[in-house]
């Protein structure tokens, strides 16, 4: 187990270097002047551009630029944006917000999704099963931004039950955006667990458990669920990673000051240092999430061994 983890961690090194290199190259290779828009609707003076190019090492060959960036990064220096703000400060300010949003979404997705999946998986072709199938199909077919705007419009503007945007990102205020963010994945989780449960329901070990006279609650809750959750856990794990980086639309609609909006705006304003910094952290999070998911497999299914 320990060796497996160590091996996985070592494998992360080339992945980390490769992705950061790609991001770095892509960010600065986006067509257009990286300082366009920095000076409003006029072109920046030459001396300003000279200074900025120097600050971001843009006059060096690309590999050297990246090397300098990587060296700083390994020392914990994420660099400074063109507005003189420390990238690491912005990451520290936005990550907890997005993490909170992602956790709310994950909770919604896991609790509602798995419950719906189990309930419908256990009842073949019943009313509840059809209801889950139809409602998940409905959710899957609506893009998140439609759900988001519709929720904001109906509950925020027309009924006035919620504030249309999030002012302070506390857990309570993030419940509505969390629901919106989770809506699509929730449907997938429900369908995944439904299929998995329905399949495993006829497995030998379930019949054995039934024959032993175990109570249904125990059969479903321990034997069936534990074995059926492997694909669901995989999905949830990668989804948490996706939530952290991909909540751009939801964050934009509800004005949540999180990572997604930060990356999005940084890309638009061509703030290379910021984009690379944030995405680097996202890559790390994603790598750790996949490792965590793989380790969870062994917990759920004793047949899986890592040494």
């Amino acid at each position: 187990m320990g060796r497996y983890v160590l091996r996985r961690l070592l494998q992360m090194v080339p992945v980390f270097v490769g992705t950061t290199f790609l991001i770095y190259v892509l960010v600065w290779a986006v067509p257009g002047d990286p300082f366009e828009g920095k000076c409003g609707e006029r072109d920046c003076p030459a001396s300003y551009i000279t200074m900025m190019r120097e600050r971001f090492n843009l006059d060096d060959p690309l590999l050297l630029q990246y090397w300098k960036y990587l060296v700083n990064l390994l020392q914990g220096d994420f660099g400074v944006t063109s507005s003189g703000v420390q990238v690491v400060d912005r990451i520290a300010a936005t990550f907890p917000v997005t993490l909170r949003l992602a956790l709310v979404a994950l909770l919604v997705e896991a609790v509602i999704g798995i419950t719906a999946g189990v309930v419908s998986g256990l009842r073949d072709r019943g009313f509840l099963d059809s209801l889950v199938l139809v409602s998940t199909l409905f959710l899957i077919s609506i893009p998140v931004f439609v759900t988001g705007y519709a929720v904001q419009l109906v509950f925020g503007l027309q009924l006035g039950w919620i504030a249309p945007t999030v002012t302070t990102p506390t857990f309570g205020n993030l419940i509505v955006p969390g629901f919106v963010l989770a809506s699509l994945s929730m449907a997938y989780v429900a369908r995944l667990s439904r299929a998995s449960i329905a399949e495993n329901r006829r497995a030998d070990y379930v019949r054995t458990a039934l024959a032993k006279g175990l109570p249904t609650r125990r059969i479903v809750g321990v034997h069936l669920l534990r074995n059926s959750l492997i694909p669901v856990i995989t999905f949830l794990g990668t989804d948490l990673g996706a939530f952290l980086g991909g909540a751009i639309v939801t964050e934009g609609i509800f004005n949540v000051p999180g990572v997604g909006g930060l990356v999005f705006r940084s890309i638009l304003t061509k703030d290379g240092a910021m984009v690379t910094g944030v995405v680097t952290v996202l890559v790390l999070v994603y790598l750790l999430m996949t490792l965590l998911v793989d380790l969870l497999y062994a917990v759920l299914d004793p047949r899986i061994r890592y040494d």
Partner: protein
Amino acid sequence: MARARSTPRLVPAVVAVALAATACGSTDTPTGSNADAGITIFNTEPENPLVPGNTTEVGGSRVLDPLFTGLVEYRARDAQPVNAMAESIDTTDSKTFTVKIKKDWLFHDGSPVTAKSFVDAWNWTAYGPNGTQGASFFSQIEGYDAVHPKDPDGPDKPQAPPAPTAETMSGLAIVDDHTFTITLSEPFAVFPVTIGYEVFAPLPEVFFKDRAAFEGHPIGNGPFKFVSRTVGTDIKLTRNDDYKGDDKPKFKDLTLKVYQSRESAYADLVANNLDFMEELPPNALAGRQYETDLGDRVVQRETLNNQTIAFPFYLPPYDNVDLRRAISMAINREEITERIFEGTRKPADGWVHPLMKGYRPGQCGEYCTFDPDKAKAALAKSGYTGEIVLLSNTDGGHQEWAEAVVNSIKNTLGVQARFVPSTSFGEFRQKVNAHEMTGMYRAGWVADYPSIENWLTPLFRTGASSNDGLYSNPAFDAKLAEADKATSEDEAIELYLEAERIMAPDLPSIPLWTQNTIAGRSDRLKVANLDPFRTLDLFSVEVA
């Protein structure tokens, strides 16, 4: 503005349909005018450190403008410059200006504002190695070349710019604590009009001692004081009760809130959670949705910007004056402004904006009037029968009118005309700057300062900074030079108008229309007006 342009295209339609059913949200509002109230207005994240000489983009300007008061300020009503910190600005030859500043003004830290505060600030901003954004605004002052030498091969190339030979501009001299003189390298009659921009703001001594601390907590001399900033969330200012200016703000606290998107800000505005927002998002403008959503909370006025079609004089056939005339006379401005913009744009009849002092109607004359017969005749005279191409970026909502213009040309002249979109403004501007345009192209101008001169010189004088199409007319240049040397404002205006008339038959660009800016306010604000520069006039704000 780049930030608002990239919302998914479907969003506006969806929201427009849904919002149609919306009744305005309501919140409880206290009654009676409230001088101690706080308001929250829309902002975008400042993209530069908060130093007046180093910020020319809108997110930073919205913060710095209330914090600083310059020698002159522009009156919100008519954009005319009026003395603010200046007691008087005198000149006899339009080359040397003697500036007397008002006494007893203080910075927010209690230090006095003196002539030195201005001179030091200007020298710091102009100094090449400081690499400020506002440096070029000082280029007319004598000695600018010494503190800010030109980079011989451009900023993108390896060769470093030569080191400056001086640290201060020879054209600035302090006479006493409250007097200083400005000497320009060439006479420039409208110079006093240009210095209302916040790049010309004074800086306190603490700035020169500890710049990093200043950037974290800017200290100005304006009607508002800096309180705190949470990067990415908001910036808080509060009224400066020691402010010596004539106008006093009629509310206390000002919060500039950073929004992730214009759409989310608009939702807050509709729900009265946000007090003011200028330039509504596309989903609000589509089909005049804002009228349904905001009702009498819509704030609208004509602002200092226009839309034109520019010609690449380096690319045939666009150097053919008859073809340019034919194209201009083939565009039905009235119909396009009515149909596409529903009256929020006004057809232009010249290059100078109608809000400018000295504006004269009809300077472009028949060349800017839709006339199919004359247009066809001009086309025949030009001898051109090929295709006409119009280029524009489409991320700022330009596609609709660009297509309409092309259709208008096609239908009137009976030639092939094509609109070629380009996805990003940055990419588009890069090609414009590199003189790589393959057709005529969209151009717009936002006034730097409210002078008739600003609509002509930077755009059309030979070799001028924004003369991207490389237009050149010696007679026009000579008339501009004459106007620059004029000794009185009225004389200068007359001469600039003459220059505009000299240029008109050449049609170096086609004036299309001038623009209204549409903003919205919350129920709480009794009064909130826009100024001609598309921002909230803070002095007008009254909270109910």
